[in-house]
């Protein structure tokens, strides 16, 4: 009994910290509509900053505490709102979510950069060594502090939301932002306040939990999972229920920790499940939550470009990819190819996100986990049979559907939460699981060490060599890319886009939305499984630590930065993560790529279509009308390749000149195109090249009127066309109403 009470108290302390973290998360989500994935990362940075002040610089604890919590944290919160989140209003939920993930990656990378993870940072609890006895249980002062703080947070939030004017406006803006504005609330100020308080709570949780965990970037950042598991029990809205959720989590965690050593039969299995208790609680909560109402998406003039790829364009793209791969394969050394081989596996994992996120508007944060499952399947089937890949696709597709099922009934955000939880669950537990036996069959995921992932052999043809496997990868990538194009052009793709635009409308037209989401999620998981099989073949040997959650997030970030519905984005993601360019050029800055990816993603709010659709495609589209330029470019590149093969130039020259050529061709082509238009116009009167789209209100100012503009205006303003003779200038006289 004494023990039971002991574990209970320590569970309460854990619960208190979860509650502090989760309440901050819920507060920002309900008042601003942004689900902050970086909540844990912010707490982590706060914990490290506190450590640096307290132990690095030797400041007294109260000073460090006050500076961190009451000065830096609210300042950072306000900065986040003003600098980033204010500009995200009116963007899709996926964009908002991805920006917070970017922030999380950026902070994670930066913290690893500033505070080297290899250094040991001994930390001390508050009031080290002091204990107090309550009903026979020895509690440290630190634990008492944590409990008191949580209580203060609960009371404080309650007072803020129900007793102050600004708090009442906060609750009002949850229900309807514009309505709250009409009633005199100032949403800008409310949002700032809620970010300031949210960040303070994250920082508080980070600083309080750091001494009891170890001070590590990884585990503190992943505090977010524990926090949102508690928040989901409060349905991401209710603060009291969130506290209840935290209580359930904290007690479950500490009782499990306390009693697991008593189980003698299968202790090792339970031991490995303990870190995943929040994830397990989360999935149970998701199953219990009632079905969400289908809501329409408010029709906004989205800035989203949904371009339909043509078959010819896609085939041309594939030809360029395969040719480029052949060129690279012939010029680089085998040592470099060891790394480069990974490109196509990663690119296919990126590609798997296109139908899911780009077309269907759903999100998955565990594609890399599916890839690892694909690798495991291929390794277990063994041999070199291509059937192993089929199994990889089938099994990952099945697992994907199973994972998604509980969340599919709910709003999109829950799918993100449960997939992230699944990824962490696999990292922490499944991929570390010891061998077990069911029905006489022995399961051993990683065969107590590393798995060998074989490369397929088709019709007796192997792809064992570096060059062969690299080119093989490009071909597989192209096949997958064409499958994506087929989906986009076919009935399924149209349904997905329709579902993204209005789930309410498609369901009243007879589409089973849950099943459609399930189908696209499974398809996407299966593609990721194939990507994993290819990636695994490139790595050859895979162990449970080969990949982690953050690497998977980086793939999503890169895809979104480049443009989530472009095939090119997948190539970009593959190159960025697979080719060791950054590591080679800046060997001392290991964290550079994470930081870069994070901060590039934060800029996403301004450019939700990604840079390929926004910047590159318009430039290259012009070139299609100047075939001579394209032929010239290809010819020059082939000539350069010839020079390289003849050892006239080296790899650096070849790479720099090729990239330079590709960069200057669109502007040059653009100029040539303009010239030709001008010449054509010179013959037939003055026609000025005008930008493709002139905003309607600027017509007549930045570009001259044309008859079709007037027709378009009539349509947009819903006017009847004017009689012919009145089109140029309105005539005088009395105009009666039509």
């Amino acid at each position, binding site marked *: 009994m004494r023990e039971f009470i002991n574990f209970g108290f320590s569970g309460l302390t854990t619960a208190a910290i979860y509650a502090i973290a989760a309440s901050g998360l819920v507060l920002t989500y309900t008042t601003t509509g942004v689900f902050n994935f970086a909540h844990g990362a912010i707490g982590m940075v706060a914990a490290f900053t506190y450590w640096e002040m307290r132990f690095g610089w030797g400041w007294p604890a109260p000073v460090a505490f006050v500076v961190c919590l009451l000065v830096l944290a609210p300042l950072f919160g306000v900065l986040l709102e003003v600098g980033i989140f204010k500009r995200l209003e009116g963007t899709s939920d996926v964009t908002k979510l991805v920006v917070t993930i970017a922030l999380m990656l950026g902070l994670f990378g930066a913290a690893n950069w500033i505070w080297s993870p290899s250094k040991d940072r001994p930390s001390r609890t508050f009031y080290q060594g002091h204990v107090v006895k309550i009903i026979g249980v020895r509690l440290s002062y630190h634990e008492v502090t944590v409990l008191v703080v949580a209580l203060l947070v609960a009371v404080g939030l309650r007072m803020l939301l129900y007793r102050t004017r600004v708090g009442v406006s906060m609750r009002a803006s949850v229900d309807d932002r514009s309505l709250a504005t009409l009633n005199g609330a100032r949403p800008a100020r409310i949002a700032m306040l809620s970010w300031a308080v949210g960040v303070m709570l994250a920082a508080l949780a980070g600083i309080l939990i750091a001494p009891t965990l170890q001070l590590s970037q990884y585990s503190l950042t992943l505090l977010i999972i524990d926090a949102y598991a508690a928040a989901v029990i409060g349905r991401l809205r209710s603060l009291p229920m969130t506290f209840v959720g935290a209580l359930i989590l904290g007690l479950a965690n500490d009782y499990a920790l306390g009693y697991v050593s008593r189980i003698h039969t299968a202790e090792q299995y339970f031991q490995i499940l303990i870190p995943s208790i929040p994830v397990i609680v989360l999935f149970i909560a998701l199953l219990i939550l009632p079905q969400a*109402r289908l809501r329409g998406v408010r029709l906004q003039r989205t800035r989203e470009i949904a371009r339909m790829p043509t078959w010819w364009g896609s085939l041309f793209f594939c030809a360029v990819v395969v040719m480029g791969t052949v060129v690279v394969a012939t010029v680089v050394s085998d040592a470099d190819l060891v790394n480069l081989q990974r490109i196509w596996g990663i690119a296919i994992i990126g590609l798997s996100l296109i139908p899911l996120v780009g077309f269907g508007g759903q999100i998955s944060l565990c594609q890399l986990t599916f890839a690892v499952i694909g690798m495991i399947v291929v390794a277990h089937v063994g041999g070199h049979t291509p059937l192993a890949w089929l199994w990889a696709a089938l099994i990952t597709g099945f697992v994907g559907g199973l994972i998604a099922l509980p969340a599919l009934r709910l709003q999109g955000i829950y799918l993100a939460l449960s997939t992230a939880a699944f990824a962490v669950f696999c990292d922490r537990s499944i991929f570390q699981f010891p061998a077990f036996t069911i029905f006489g069959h022995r399961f051993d995921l990683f065969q107590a060490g590393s798995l060998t992932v074989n490369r397929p052999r088709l019709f007796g043809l192997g792809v064992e060599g570096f060059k062969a496997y690299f080119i093989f990868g490009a071909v597989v990538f192209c096949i997958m890319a064409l499958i994506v194009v087929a989906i986009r052009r076919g009935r399924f793709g*149209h349904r997905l886009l329709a579902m993204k635009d209005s789930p309410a409308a498609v369901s*009243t037209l*007879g*589409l089973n939305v849950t099943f459609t989401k399930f189908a696209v999620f499974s398809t996407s998981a299966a593609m990721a499984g194939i990507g994993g099989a290819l990636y695994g073949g490139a790595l050859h040997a895979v162990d449970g630590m080969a990949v982690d959650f953050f690497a998977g997030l980086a793939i999503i970030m890169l895809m979104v930065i480049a443009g989530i519905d472009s095939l090119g984005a997948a190539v970009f993601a593959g190159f960025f993560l697979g080719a060791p360019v950054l590591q080679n050029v800046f060997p001392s800055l290991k964290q550079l790529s994470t930081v870069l990816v994070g901060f590039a993603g934060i800029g996403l709010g301004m450019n939700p279509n990604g840079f390929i659709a926004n910047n590159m495609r318009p430039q290259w589209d012009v070139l299609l009308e100047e075939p001579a330029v394209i032929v010239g470019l290809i010819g020059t590149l082939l000539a350069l390749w010839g020079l390289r093969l003849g050892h006239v130039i080296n790899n650096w020259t070849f790479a720099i000149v090729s990239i330079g050529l590709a960069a200057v061709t669109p502007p040059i082509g653009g100029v040539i195109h303009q010239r030709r238009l001008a010449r054509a116009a010179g013959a037939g009167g003055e026609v000025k090249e005008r930008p493709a789209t002139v905003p309607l209100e600027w017509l007549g100012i930045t570009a001259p009127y044309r008859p079709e503009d007037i027709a378009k205006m009539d349509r947009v303003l819903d006017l009847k066309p004017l009689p012919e003779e009145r089109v140029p200038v309105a005539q005088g006289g009395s105009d009666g109403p039509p």
Partner: protein
Amino acid sequence: MALLELTGVTVRFGGLIAVDDVSLNAEAGLITGLIGPNGAGKTTLFNVVTGLEKPTRGRVTLDGEDITSYPPYRRARRGMARTFQRLELFGTLTVRENVEVAAGIAVRWADAKESPPDLAARLIDRVGLSAVADERADALPTGQGRLVELARSLATNPRVLLLDEPASGQSTSETEHFADLLRALAADGMAVVLVEHDMNLVMAVCDFINVLDFGSLLVAGPPEQVRSDPAVLAAYLGSEWQADAV
């Protein structure tokens, strides 16, 4: 027995009663009007009928089959279609694709004689949108957007068609054309339920009108009766108005 029957439908949002014990019918081949001031619960009632909202109490039957617990897509497959007051277009698709998606979804159960592309082309022509068939749907003005929604719902070959303020945003001539279209649809045997604020249109096309106020059914009857009912006038215009004002 009417094709669509609502019995004692009640919807509560927390303490608010949005729809209070409403019973009404829609007969095949007739146009049934549903009118009432803003906030009377008309759209909520549509949501209950199409399955987007669960009623707190009450029953919805379609052709004698109790569909109260069916999800939206199963109702659609039994012949229920609707348009939305706040447009729910597939904005990234073209007008043609909007209708084709609906035709493609319905192809499995609606016994359409044409292929989805043919059906889409015919319906776009029927609602008069051929000129903008290949424009992106979110580039259209509201009035035309409503016609896209109409064509889209017709593509599922419905037996019951619920229209939520289809004429708002349309010009006078478009509305006249629209009235003819509604009559033609009813003549085909469809049960049309119309929520509309344009009283001229409602009075001109409806065979039967239900008036909702504060969530409950105020009056139900043919247009002539509703037009002169004092309770309706009071609800719509304030109690001091006379019958001849409408």
